């Protein structure tokens, strides 16, 4: 059985924090705060149609366009980091990236290494399976994730 006396201080602390007008959720590592008015470090993985990474110049495609608009929303500069998928996943896991795009779908195997957004659009692949498209964010940076989710859900994404 649980001991209510152990939980009470925690509960009171939380009630105190919430009533002080602290925004919920918060980022344990302060991603949203750092990115706002600063630099958004975005990993890009080549994925035809979704993310195209030319040898020179900025990435193009559905997702880079979304990211640019999101960054504008946050008054942030985008720093594009191209690379191989597993390297970039490792980077985001270790907090060296704020966002990772590459036409990922909701059934991505990277859920231990990164958080995923709500699906912002759906497509059907050549085998007739529905793909729910998501972006990857650092684990547990929930304020940043919610901000991105809000932004993505408000977009009409045509593919």
């Amino acid at each position: 059985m649980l001991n209510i006396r152990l939980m009470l201080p925690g509960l009171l602390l939380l009630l105190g924090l919430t009533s002080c007008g602290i925004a919920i959720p918060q980022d344990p590592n302060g991603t949203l705060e750092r990115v706002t008015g600063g630099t958004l470090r975005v990993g890009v993985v080549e994925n035809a149609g979704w993310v195209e990474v030319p040898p020179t110049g900025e990435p193009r495609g559905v997702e880079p366009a979304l990211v640019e608009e999101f960054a504008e929303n946050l008054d942030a500069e985008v720093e594009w980091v191209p690379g191989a998928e597993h390297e970039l996943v490792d980077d985001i896991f270790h907090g060296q990236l704020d966002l990772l795009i590459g036409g990922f779908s909701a059934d991505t195997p990277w859920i231990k290494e990164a958080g995923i957004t709500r699906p912002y659009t759906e497509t059907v692949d050549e085998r007739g399976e529905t793909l729910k498209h998501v972006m990857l964010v650092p684990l547990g940076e929930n304020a940043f994730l919610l901000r991105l989710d809000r932004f993505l859900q408000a977009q009409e994404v045509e593919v």
Partner: protein
Amino acid sequence: MSTAEDQQTARFGHTELPEEQKAALRKAVRVEWVTIGFLAVSTLLVYLVLGNSQAMKAAWIEDLLSFLPPISFLVATRVIRRRPSETHPYGYHRAVGVAHLVAAVALLVMGGYLVVDSALKLITTEHPTIGGITLFGSTFWLGWLMVLAMLLTAGPPVVLGLIKMKLARTLHDKVLYADADMNKADWMTALAAAVGVLGIGVGLWWADPVAAILISTSILHDGIKNVRGAIGALTDTRARTFDDAEPHPIGERIDSYLRSLHWVRDARSRVRDEGHVFHIEAFVVPRRTTRATLHRIEKARRTCIEMDWKVQDMVIVPVAELPEEFLPGLTRGGAERQ
């Protein structure tokens, strides 16, 4: 021990419950169905908002495990209705013990798994990720829904638990008692999960695995307690009260009644709990001067059976002196082993 005559005259297959217990049993069956209905709704609700919170996962698994006691109770009450048969001369009362053990092992295993799983999340500093959800056109934090689901499902089990606790006493049913005991503590689980999620909300990622550890420890604790109780019952621990708090007083009452009889010099019995009813072997040492006639023994037995509905299966064995081998602790005088 008991003679062939004893067995023939004993009312062995007496499975009729008194009116009070019959009503309690009917009510208990109804309440357990209500419990199952509530659990179906609450597990679905919690599943829908489960997300990445370890505390929510632990609370959800506890909800799933909560199905076991009501189901085992309902199955066991069906099985023990059967009358004793040639192959089961003691009846089917032990079905209760089996059901209890099955439910208890499930609690123990899942509780242990969740403790380890949650501790690993804490050790590997895995930050739980909870993002937004879009409902009715607006996107808000999923954590709020989790807290809401937890608060909604916190109350009803407590009420059900309190009702079942009373019935468990009336029916002397340990499965029902274990179930009621778990239900009664359920609100704390729900609260712990809600606190864990709110902790994530304010940026304390560790609040979630810590809440999960608290919840799973409570599941594990329930498991250990129940496995101990169930194994105790199946290995013929002396009969105890429905909550295992103390030895059941009926043994003492029977002994002192038998000792008070004018033809009895000494008496001592051993009592085991078959599930709802007791098996009692009472050894009596008759006085030399007053003979233990068959009539006197019969009358004593009837009186004992009328003391309590649980005393149905009782034999009185006249002996020259109390047999140490059947009554351990005899030489230490007075109190039996607790």
